[in-house]
């Protein structure tokens, strides 16, 4: 009567198990290379640079690379969370500049406001991004694109169309930006600490797992009882906060709220995150990879400078080609993993 196929209960357990275990091992190996591919490339590049450029291996140079990488690293950290949820945040570049300007302005009231005010301002814009994306189902790309424009407009409005550069008034804040501990700048220590927090948050808390779940499958996550909208709002808030913090750190370092900082910061951050092995489709990614991605971009830039005389146009060609190579390599690794 039943159509159920009654099969031998302990079918080929041994065969399957052995096969599966082998498959899992390969899986994990390839997975490791794929996840840490950026790290592998980074190591190779550093070795090459060390061998070719005598100045590259100096301690000072390492410090310079690190301190230059500090603000972009923070932005990339926020972007990692956003991208893991399957979103994207184009507003970070503008928030970074805005954060720097308000931080410099607020430094007249001391060190603490110099940090808190930019966090508050950029956090609020992050909240707006998050609310619009989570509750109106508008595409993150377009919401944050609008925020990019809006935040830049706000920054210009606050700085007399960009012509007023507020100087940092707090000496403690300024020395935070330029001072160092054990030969490594304070900002680098701060960023390192934030990254450790970020790693713990992403891999060891419920929130972190909710972030992965939302990116992995939004509908499933919601049916499994994850507060999808709240999670989304939070990642954009984090991204905003981190961009504001990056702006503050940079203001401390530069001693002023510079208004002409480069556009395109958001694309750099996305590139770093993607090179670090985080999938733009969401649901997978690591912070360690992002660190490697940020440093990789920094080291490449440093190498180009070490050559000494590369015209500016060639620098871009090299960066573009490099980006393509890394991303293509990354994709083949992922594919290898899927097929085996």
């Amino acid at each position: 009567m039943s159509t159920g196929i009654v099969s031998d209960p302990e079918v080929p357990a041994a065969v399957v198990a052995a096969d599966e275990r082998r498959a899992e091992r390969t899986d994990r190996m390839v997975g490791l290379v794929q996840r840490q591919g950026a790290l592998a490339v980074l190591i190779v590049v550093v070795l090459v640079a060390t061998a070719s450029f005598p100045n590259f291996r100096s301690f000072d140079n390492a410090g310079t690379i690190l301190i230059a990488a500090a603000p972009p690293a923070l932005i990339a950290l926020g972007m990692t969370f956003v991208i893991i949820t399957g979103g994207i945040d184009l507003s970070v570049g503008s928030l970074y500049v805005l954060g720097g300007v308000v931080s410099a302005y607020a430094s007249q009231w001391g060190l603490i406001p110099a940090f808190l005010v930019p966090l508050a301002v950029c956090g609020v814009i992050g909240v707006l991004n998050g609310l619009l994306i989570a509750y109106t189902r508008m595409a993150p790309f377009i919401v944050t694109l609008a925020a990019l424009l809006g935040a830049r407009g706000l920054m210009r409005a606050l700085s007399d169309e960009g012509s007023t550069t507020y100087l940092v008034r707090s000496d403690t804040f300024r020395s935070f930006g330029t001072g160092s501990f054990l030969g490594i700048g304070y900002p680098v220590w701060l960023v390192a600490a934030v990254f450790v927090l970020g790693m713990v948050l992403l891999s060891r808390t419920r929130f972190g797992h909710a972030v992965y779940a939302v990116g992995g499958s939004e509908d499933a996550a919601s049916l499994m009882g994850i507060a999808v909208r709240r999670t989304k709002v939070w990642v954009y808030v984090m991204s905003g906060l981190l961009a504001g913090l990056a702006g503050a750190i940079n203001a401390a370092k530069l001693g002023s709220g510079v208004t002409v900082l480069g556009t395109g910061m958001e694309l750099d951050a996305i590139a770093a995150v993607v090179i670090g092995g985080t999938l733009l489709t969401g649901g997978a990614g690591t912070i360690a990879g992002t660190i490697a991605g940020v440093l990789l971009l920094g080291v490449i830039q440093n190498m180009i400078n070490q050559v000494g005389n590369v015209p500016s146009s060639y620098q871009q060609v090299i960066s573009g080609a490099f980006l393509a190579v890394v991303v293509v390599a990354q994709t083949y690794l992922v594919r290898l993993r899927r097929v085996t």
Partner: protein
Amino acid sequence: AKSEDSDTPAAGGSNPSAGAQVVQSAAPGAKSCTLEQFGGTKIDLKTAKVGFSQSEKEANPFRIAETKSIKDEAAKLGIPSANLQTTNANSQFNKQISDVEQMIDSGVQLLVIAPLNSDGWDSVFAKASAKKIPIITIDRKINATSCKDYLTFIGSDFEEQGKRAADKMAAALGNKGSVAILLGAPGNNVTTLRTKGFKDQIAKVAPEIKITFEQTGQFSREEGQKVSEQLLQSNSDINGIYAENDEMALGATVALKTAGKKKGDVKIVSIDGTKGAVQGIVDGWIYSVIESNPRFGPLAFETATKFFNGEPIAEDIIISDREYDQSNAKTDINSAY
């Protein structure tokens, strides 16, 4: 490849000595700086490691001429090219900061910087002054203490350029009319100063000239043209356009032509002194151009040599910029860049 100009010999740069920078006589009593005061050590430029940090892509005549002048002069002095490290920040300020810091790490003994921005150099100064590396900033000034944070500034007085442009405009319009300003990139110090100088001077010498329109043309020809087109539609009675660089002026010229205006209907005054703009004067579309001379190489290295020889160096070395108008455009066009 074959360009339109392939048949004609390459223009520009043919006469290296043409258009060299001339220093204005220093104001008496101005602050100066010696090697001793600065606390540096004497070095021989010929064997020294020199770093040059360019701010923007060498994509407009000013930057091209500036970088070329530095490189040419270094070669002329016999500095081996391996000892001259150059970087370009591609308009990204943070990149310029780390470029310079990296050059400091790599042991340069003299820095020539064309800063992208006047503020924000704290971390660089902290690093450079620890190693007592003299910094010469060219074309834009840095807001800091000379002889401590940096050695000296060589360049034009942007505010003064704005004032001179205002004088020209006043003369062109006979002290009355309405004028539009094509602003440079927002937030840029050059924009700020050229605007301030122009407005102050207009208010002083020709209060009957009204500034009715101010929009940014981003220092680019295309934007300059677009904005001018809009301007000419809504303010058809405009008499003069003050463009804060030549590129925007050239954009405005195209806009005037397409709007059916005739030569001289709208007086254009601009700043920079590129060949294209001076040609514009010759052709009758541009009224006058105030020069901003980018050939910093000779003056920068001369200053450095003097400094290492122990001579006092002035806080600001302001060059005297020329100006072009109908009277001299044709004859002097070869000294334009």
